[in-house]
């Protein structure tokens, strides 16, 4: 493992404890004197700040490039609309209209316009906040309500990675485009699951995803004694390492519900997170 790798914490199913694992791992590493940066890339519903309570001292809007048409220069040829696959630009009756919310910022219309009438302007799609929680550097991406540009906000959040720190990246749940944007090119993916049929089903999807992307990974079983053994059986059969089993401890549930970190309330768990870090190779 590199000295300052990027560790993504992901899960097929939502609500398995992804954020709990991510923030406590960040804290455990920090307590041990490691330089840590926590990046909340679950930009639709970022929750890491509830636990880390960082002081955000920098707020920066996230923009996406969308077309702006100069009506004087436009000849109404319609090539832009014919190329656009998203219905974000259309030429009717010699007028060109843009629909910014549908744009994916591929840049095609600008490039194809023979009159050079299309330039790129910036549309606000989210916000990135940065600050510190004690020794932990925190970055949080936040998608603007009603926007569908989740992957772009994630990419911009990732652009804040500090090369001199271990990066703990809290990914969105699921296995589709936003998750891919979060976990691509990371050094290790922790998949958090729970020992239930839903947990196992969604873990299999997540394993399929990280294997397709060719990323090294390991599993964390949360509320490990609350369900049955099918996740254990599956991981055993597939040769997947279970790096941490967190018990179904009602004190953890209560701390979580109050927005408190496990390690602050129950310091005896530090050694388990140390073992997790070791299991990852940190």
């Amino acid at each position, binding site marked *: 493992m590199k000295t300052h790798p990027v560790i993504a914490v992901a899960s097929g*199913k939502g609500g398995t404890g992804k954020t709990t694992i991510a923030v406590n791992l960040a804290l455990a590493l920090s307590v041990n004197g490691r330089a840590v940066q926590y990046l909340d890339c679950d930009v639709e519903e970022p929750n890491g700040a509830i636990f880390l309570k960082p002081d955000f001292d920098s707020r920066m809007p996230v923009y996406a490039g969308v077309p702006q048409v100069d009506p004087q220069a436009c000849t109404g040829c319609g090539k832009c609309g014919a190329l656009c696959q998203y219905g974000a630009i259309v030429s009717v009756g010699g007028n060109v209209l843009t629909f910014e919310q549908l744009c994916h910022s591929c840049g095609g219309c600008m490039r194809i316009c023979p009159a050079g009438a299309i330039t790129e302007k910036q549309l606000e799609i989210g916000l990135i906040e940065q600050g510190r929680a004690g020794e932990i550097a925190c970055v949080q991406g936040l998608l603007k309500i009603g926007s569908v540009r989740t992957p772009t906000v994630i990419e911009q959040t990732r652009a804040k990675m500090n090369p001199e720190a271990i990066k703990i990246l809290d990914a969105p749940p699921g296995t589709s485009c936003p998750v891919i944007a979060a976990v691509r090119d990371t050094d290790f993916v922790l998949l958090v699951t729970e020992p239930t*049929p839903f947990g196992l089903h969604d873990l299999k999807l997540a394993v399929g995803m990280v294997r397709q992307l060719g990323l090294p990974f390991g599993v964390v079983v949360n509320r490990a004694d609350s369900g049955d053994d099918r996740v254990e059986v599956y991981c055993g059969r597939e040769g997947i390492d279970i790096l941490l089993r967190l018990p179904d401890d009602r004190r953890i549930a209560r701390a979580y*519900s109050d927005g408190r970190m496990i390690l602050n309330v129950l310091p005896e768990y530090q050694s388990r997170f140390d073992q997790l870090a070791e299991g990852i190779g940190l």
Partner: protein
Amino acid sequence: MKEIVIISGKGGTGKTSITAALAGLAQNSVLADCDVDAADLHLVTSPTVLQEQDFVGGRQAVIQPLQCRGCGRCFSLCRFGAIQPVEGKKAFRVNSSFCEGCKVCVEFCPAGAIDFVDSVNGRWFLSQTRFGPMVHAELGIAQENSGKLVALIRKEARQLARAEQREWILADGSPGIGCPVIASLTGADFVLVVTEPTQSGRHDLRRILELTDHFKIAAAICVNKADLNPEMTAEIEQEAAKKNLSVLAKIPYDTAITRAQIQAQNVIEYDPDGPAARSIRRLWETIQETV
């Protein structure tokens, strides 16, 4: 016919378990699993698939290796990082996990070496369950266009409900506030937001309610595991009241929900007189009165 969509900003609040329980209570309904990214409803309803079809979500670029001259124009134009050099060769390939189907590379390849082909992003199913017919899907791993697949599932569910004169559509929505969620709720008759009494649950509830406001959709709230943190539940109720929204149910924490799931049952079947089952039964009565 009334379409009820069950969503939750936050994952893991019990949305699917509650949907499955409502499915057992609603007579004459069609089930739709719109959580295509992590479809779990079938694990409880055990559907028998009657029909299955490919889902063509869009189109993707494919580079023909024999025609590629390796000029790298596609590589420099692609804004999604989907074009990758082929190792050891002067050629490029498309990584389909990252291709967003914009067609820019296809248009500008000087060798005409890039095809634009339909991409099968998943499969969708028409099934029979012990609760009635069900429309569901499997989105391929690392696939795009889950919003379009959600729209397709809802359309098929509506068609089915109309053809069979079903009274209800119960749709299990997806977590978050992004594209598939927006596709889950636009035009629904009733949206039930399932949350839990945690800081995270409350935070995500606020975000999802901003979204339903944005799209002017009527929503009501259900607090699951309400007794795990009664103070927080009370705060959620107060916030809801300020927004003129009702908390239709406070479902107590009940391990029967997980135990039922392990038996591939819903909680009404597994423990019909338990606290969760009783609460969900009252919830269903309230929904019927409200819609």
